[in-house]
């Protein structure tokens, strides 16, 4: 069974980067797809990759991750969004590589493809349109 767990921004409010990453990886190791409100800092993404590499073994093969941000071309509005909302804008999807085949992304949508025993017919697709 495929489980998607939504993590609101409020759950991360009082956590430092290390705790945040520990929480995400804990959920992913339970074979859940995690949907985080907002996006991680770039340095946190790098740390997430490092921590992932440390725990890879024969069972846990790593993660798939993608985040998407609202496309705001107006520089002032973008600045205002960042000032008011910070990392809360957008959404980040993180899933175990054993479950998630790939996450395809373009500026306006994310498509998450899961593995279902190699059968193309049963391939599930989750689409998020902005």
């Amino acid at each position, binding site marked *: 069974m495929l489980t998607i767990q939504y993590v609101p921004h409020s759950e991360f409010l009082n956590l430092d980067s290390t705790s945040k990453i520990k929480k995400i990886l804990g959920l992913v190791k339970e074979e859940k797809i995690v949907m985080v409100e907002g996006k991680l800092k*770039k340095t946190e993404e790098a740390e997430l*990759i*490092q921590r992932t*590499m440390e725990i890879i073994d*024969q069972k846990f093969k790593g993660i798939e*991750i*993608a985040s998407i941000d609202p496309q705001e071309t107006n520089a002032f509005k973008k600045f205002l969004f960042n000032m008011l909302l910070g990392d809360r804008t957008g959404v980040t999807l993180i899933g175990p*590589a054993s479950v998630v085949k790939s996450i395809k992304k*373009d500026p306006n949508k994310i498509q998450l493809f899961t593995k279902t025993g190699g059968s193309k017919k049963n391939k599930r697709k989750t689409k998020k349109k902005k």
Partner: protein
Amino acid sequence: MVNVFKRLLGRIFKNLFKKKKHLKIGLYGPPNAGKSTLANRICKDWLGEEMSAVSNIPHETREIEIKEQINLQNDGKELSFSLVDTPGIATKIDYEDFIKKGLKKKEAKQRAKEATKGVIDAIKWLDDMDVVIVILDSTQDPYSQVNITIVGNLQARDIPVLLVGNKVDLKRSNLKKIEAAFPQYDIVGISAQYGNNIDKFYDALISTANA
């Protein structure tokens, strides 16, 4: 505001001493984008010898490799640097993928173990770089999170970046897609294997390093 001031101060300080120091230029990117092929091209062009082993099996480079004292001269301009070839950065490594590429189980497991350590080392080394060449495979989807994470981390660390789209000799190559994904950068399209557009790449590298 404090960050902006810090960055400004850092840049001024960096520029004051830039001319005196020997630059460390890193090659970063996802596995099989052509980092080692480009490292070999640069070393062959300016030192007359190759630097790294290359292979079609991902994660051929699993340790940081450094070539000291490369003196590049192009169009009357010069650049002296050490070249650092890094393992490809990935979010997943499955030893079974290496078995599918023809490795034996034991070799595949060892390669996977070394590859995970290589990714950790590559990220750790980011802070030591003065300039980074990010190499993307122009036949692949540029929107992968690994590409975005690498470029974002370089921006966050205020490290000058030269973005290169490799494998332009292939029919499936699509530089426009990379340009759309990273509109804030001038993308240089090259073929590291055949040397297409390599003079333009050297020119861009000197400009990026001296910016």
